[in-house]
Each structure stands twice: as structure tokens, then as C-alpha cells.
């Protein structure tokens, strides 16, 4: 049930050096994936690159063959109306259910805000999203 509401987010850790992000995106290009979301955040000597790919058959193997350690987790790819109160409503509802947001990122898309949401309790978060009638991003 949860799988139907979530998408796979891949995470790889690379050295925090110029050219390392390009190495990862080069592999994604070779696999011909479409990116739905991407983060690269530096923490000390390393960079944590996380992304959601539209089509990802064989992607994990491609990354591992390149020597990268790949982690996967299930995240929500959702859309909200473009109103300041909407994000607040979502974050407050998750908080009220004791759900911690691990990462949240996104952009405006016309009259919508499209977001990738990772939480510590995906099952409970799925129920909150259903209750709030938050649709999956299209």
C-alpha cells in the first residue's frame, strides 16, 4: 500500500571535491533517467547526493558498478497549492502525529508547489497525507 504512494529516493556519498557531482550526474545521463528532484549537501569532507529519478531500471547497479555505495529510501513526491498556509498546514499535521521530517525540498510549478518529502515514519505520514487530501505530484 505504502509503495503505491511513495517513490524511491537514492542516496550516494562522494568526496566533497569539484567534479564529484559531475561524476554522479554523468552516470545518471548514461542511464537516461529523468530527475524529479535532487539535493547535494556538503557535510565536512563529503557530499551527500540524493535524487528521485523518473525511470530507474538498472540505476542502482550502474551506480554500484561505478564504486558508489547506494542507499534507497521511500519518499513522498507530492504537490500542494501555491499558498503560504499550505506548507505550514502539512508540516504542522506531521508534527502533531509525532512524525519527524528527514528532508523536504521542492519548487514552485505554476500554481502548485511540488515537494519531495522524507520522514521517519512513512506509514503514519501516508495516513496524514490521505487525511489532508494531499495528492501525488503529476
Amino acid at each position: 500500500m505504502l509503495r503505491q504512494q511513495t517513490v524511491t529516493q537514492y542516496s550516494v556519498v562522494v568526496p566533497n571535491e569539484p567534479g564529484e557531482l559531475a561524476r554522479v550526474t554523468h552516470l545518471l545521463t548514461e542511464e537516461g533517467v529523468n530527475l524529479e528532484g535532487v539535493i547535494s549537501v556538503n557535510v565536512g569532507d563529503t557530499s551527500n547526493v540524493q535524487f528521485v529519478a523518473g525511470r530507474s531500471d538498472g540505476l542502482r547497479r550502474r551506480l554500484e558498478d561505478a564504486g558508489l555505495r547506494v542507499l534507497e529510501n521511500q519518499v513522498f513526491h507530492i504537490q500542494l497549492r501555491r499558498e503560504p498556509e499550505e506548507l505550514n498546514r502539512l508540516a504542522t499535521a506531521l508534527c502533531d502525529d509525532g512524525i519527524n521530517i528527514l528532508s523536504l525540498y521542492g519548487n514552485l510549478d505554476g500554481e502548485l508547489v511540488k515537494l519531495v518529502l522524507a520522514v521517519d515514519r512513512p506509514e503514519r505520514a501516508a495516513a496524514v497525507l490521505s487525511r489532508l487530501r494531499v495528492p501525488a505530484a503529476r
Partner: protein
Amino acid sequence: MQEATKEVRVSIDHPQEDERVTTPSYSFRIKAPLNAEHVDVSIDGSAWARCRYASGYWWHDWSGYGPGPHEAVARIRPFDSRGFILRTRRFTVELASAPEERPVRRAATLHTTIVPNSPGALAKVLAALAEEKLQVSCLLAVNVGDAAVIHFIAGPGELARPELAERLLRAGIKTIAREVLALSLAKSPCQLGSLAKTLADGNIGVRCLFGAASSDALRVIVAVDRVEAALGYLASAKL
């Protein structure tokens, strides 16, 4: 002195020998041993310029130069040595015809605030933004240990930066504001790859990158260590 030179790995990584430099600004990258006290660069016999250390390398940012052959000398002083190790590099600048136009301004102001990593901390920030009727157009919230780092671009877009800062403070949100690249790329990672490679080739450090796809594009925010230089490189690469 000669013996010490043989033992340590020292090199000018960028530019490489006989490299053609075609960009209006350039960063030299020098690899030096961990015990290097400092590294200096002299170009075409100019005074020694002190390099900065970042990400395991020593860097020198260079701009305002003309076309033709150039020679750079790097000198490295190890902590345990009274002498210098010298490395020389010859390269050529071949600038495209003088820039006809300034690169399109594609920068935005990114605000960053740090809160405890606990349920409700992000909600509190978002509630304060909503109270001030500030629209978040880009958002990245990510946990780093005991803290959650929240990056956002807030509007409305026409709001002047001082007024926005005042409204954020009024909302109880202390932020650090900085200029970042705000780009719209194709959804295929090919263009993202070109972006990453262009920045890497220009020795521009990427501190943080995030983006999400809209219906027809991947909108990306990139925090870099030198925004103006990065914009120049992106314009040269037609990105």
C-alpha cells in the same frame, strides 16, 4: 632541499601544461603536502599572491588577464622546511571576442536558518512565514545531526531584500542571506551534468544544490563559493 622535493607530492593541477584558458576568470589549483605552511602563486613574474586552502587543495583566483602565453610559478613552504618547493606551468589564454553582453542575471537570495532536529521545528518556521504572508518558492530542509538546516527563497519576488529581512526578523526567523544561482534546466540529468562539470572545471565549489522538477524543467538552486565567477562560466558554456 632537493631530497625533500622528491619526497612530497606537489603539483599545479590547473592549469595543465599547455592548457588553453578560454574563460574570463580562472582558478589555479595546487596540490601540496598536508604539512604545507602556505602556498603562493606568481603569474608572469608578478608579486607572490597567497593562495587559499579549501577542500584539500590550494587555490588562486585570477581574472582581468589578456590573451597570449603565460607562465605561473607556485611555491610551497612545508612546515618543516626553511626552503620552498617550486612548480612551473606554461599555458595560453585564448579569450573569445570580448564579451558582447553581460550574462543573464540568474541569481536569487537564499535564506538559511538552523533549528533543532525535532518534530515541529520546521512547522514553526513555516508558520512564521505564513503569518507574514511570505511565499516560499524554493525550500530545502535537511537534518544534519542534532540540527535541521532550512534553506528557502521567499517572496513575493518584488520584495526588496532589506524589507524581506525585516519581515523575517519580525517573524522571529534569524537567517543568513546569500546570493545563489537559480537555474532552469532540462529534466534530463544531461544539463545538470554539464552544469556540474562547468563549475568543476572553473574550480567553483558547490556548497549546496537542490532542485525539483516542474512539468517541463528542473529548477535548480546552487549555492557556490563565487557567484559572479560561476555566472561567467555558465554564460561561456551557454548554460
